[in-house]
């Protein structure tokens, strides 16, 4: 009897392996290679990839950048219309800065993101489809720049989904995407 609580007898390395077990291992290897490949393929051809440069930044520098962004943009009742394709947003305990931002559908923006204090989450979804959700991690000291393009107009709500203190569920911001 080959028991898991006794030392195996003889040379177990050369003992036979069931055909079905070997088949399953081959299937598994192929499947794992597909899993690996799909990330690389999507990185080249897919439209959702969280690639973008990160820069070190001090909190005071980044506060200044967001202030400059707000000043350069046009203040409207809906929110800030950015002066160019660069958008600067930030999370702080317990609110977002730089929001709401008014965007044009179909236009690509460079979204700069950081935190003024601790770790936060930036979780975005359109009001009309909660399942279309995407989440990013924001770290103090790091300015992350990600290109984003919203094709569907609508209000995209932003909440913080990283615990940043007792008041964190009150954090809210929005991207207003217009035609």
């Amino acid at each position, binding site marked *: *009897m*080959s*028991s*898991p*609580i006794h*030392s*195996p007898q003889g040379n*177990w390395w050369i*003992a*036979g*392996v*069931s055909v*079905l*077990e070997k088949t*399953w*291992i081959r*299937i*598994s290897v192929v*499947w*794992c*290679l597909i*899993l690996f490949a*799909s*990330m690389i393929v*999507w990185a080249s051809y*897919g439209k*959702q*990839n969280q690639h973008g440069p*990160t820069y070190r930044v001090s909190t005071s520098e980044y506060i200044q950048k967001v202030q400059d962004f707000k000043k350069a943009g046009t203040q409207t009742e809906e929110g800030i219309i950015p002066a160019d394709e660069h958008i600067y947003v930030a999370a702080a305990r317990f609110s977002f800065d730089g929001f709401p931002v008014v965007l044009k559908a179909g236009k690509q923006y460079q979204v700069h*993101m950081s*935190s003024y204090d*601790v*770790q936060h*989450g930036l*979780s975005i979804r359109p009001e009309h489809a*909660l*399942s*279309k*959700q995407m*989440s990013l*991690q924001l*770290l103090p*000291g*790091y300015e992350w720049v*990600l*290109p*984003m393009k919203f*094709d569907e107009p609508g*209000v995209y*709500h932003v*909440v*913080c*989904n990283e*615990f940043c203190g*007792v*008041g*964190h*569920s009150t954090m*809210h911001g*929005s991207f207003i995407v217009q035609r």
Partner: protein
Amino acid sequence: MIKELFTNDYGPDGFRTCSVTGMRIDRTAENFVKIFGLTAVVALVMGGISAILVVLTRWEVVGLLPPDAFYNWLSVHAWNLLIFWMVFMEVAILYVGGPMVLGRKLPAPKLAMVGYVLMLVSAIGINWSIMTTSAPDQAPLLTSYAPLPSSEWFYLSAIVFILGTVIAALPFFAAIWQEKIEHPNRSLPLVAFGAFITAIIAVEALLGGLITYIPTYMWRIGLIEHIDAAWYRQMYWIIGHGSQQINLAAMVTVWYFLTHVVGGAEVVSEKVSRSAFILYLFFINMGAAHHLMADPALAASWKVWNTSYAAYGAVLASMIHAFAIPAGLEAGRRKRGAGKSLFGWLWSAPWGNPVFSAVIFSIILFGFMGGITGVLMGQMQLNLAWHNTWATVGHFHATVVLGTTMTFMGLVFFVIQTMFKKELIMAPLARIQPWFYSGFMALATLMMMYLGILYGIPRRHASVMDIPGTDFNFGAAEPLFVIFGIAALLAIVGGILFAGISVGSLLFGKKLEPSSVFRPAASWTGDGSAVHLQSMRGTFTFTLIFLAVFVIAYILNWYLLSRLWEIG
């Protein structure tokens, strides 16, 4: 009465022979297994109490706790269930997998005692520091993400707990060492080998914990001025995820052990199963990188390499075990004529024994729910849709609750009957406990996954039905929350049932001769044919069903991702 729990009929050399497993058991090793196991159950009870408060808060129809209390109890929930219940059990498993399986004395029992005391004191310290959190400190949750500060006593206790665990693991390593000195040409039994791999993975994780918590403690008490958030995340996840990989490796080891002693499973290929453990050793540690997929400061190539090289080496290992363990059961039972049809070997198994049903449910639910979702959220781009949603919480409830906790519950039932030699009280309830608990827990877990993926419900929130200052809220998800709330409460009832039966059996259970409940391993005789030549077509069918579900879930997730706006 307490003393009675720690007595058994040992011979003059301090050993007894277990009538079920045939193992030669050393008195000291057995007593430590009992002490660590009982402490683990206390942590489970503590975690279960906090679970009630957490569920009744997140189900906002009740909305029990205010946010500050909620986050404290959520932290208590995480530390007691993910860490203390698991780690105390795992030390017990090391002492079973090392000294007991090898028939040796527990080396250096004083170290075991020192380790235990340090672990116990620091576990109490962590609970106490969480409960007394006050501004500017925040509840640590599991992650205590710097630079958000937690109590300095929390970090200090975490350091002591890690040291205590390392010390408690030393007698295990010593037993393996002695065995190899005495029998250099004898392979370790598979269970001892699995425990050995588990222990190495554990030490890696624990060292990562020291690298994380010592500087963080120094930062918290002001010796270091600045702590970098990205650095913290990298270091933290060495232990944060590493500790869960200890759970995985320990659980798989227990699967081999219990399917054998309760169901008559054999090892269909030592080579394949051991190679899979070796894959864990080399590849599983970097799987921790999947927590950093939505982070800045890391290159895409770093993310793809670390999740893929690592995760898929480990995924492959898990897929191999997913075949090898049920195949062991199938081949072992077929060899003895238990069931000729495709699944006859399974239907004829001892389903009325809660040890058996707990293990089988944990294998199935871990694979289908925990394993698949783990791969999905570990894919760099798919992680965008999973990160920090409640679906990730669903994933680790599938792995750690439906998988590890269920397995460990089965093991506790086994230990109560074979080491404490007590009959399980309320036998009919004990019989249905694994069905009840895993059924409702699976439903609650599924709801967390749906709520996270289909409604984007964030994790770690006291309330999502009302966000002050905006009309926006997650009210659309309310119906699923109802199912979640009811299922979770019923699962907790299943947990209470477990604790009640365990503690009740120890205190009031009748004295039991274990071989009257479990078939002694020595009586499992077959027709003498080689185990790898037995049919494994039932297992193969199961694994093909598993693969089909995997592929469908995989394609569905990429489809959902492709519908999002363009990023990157």
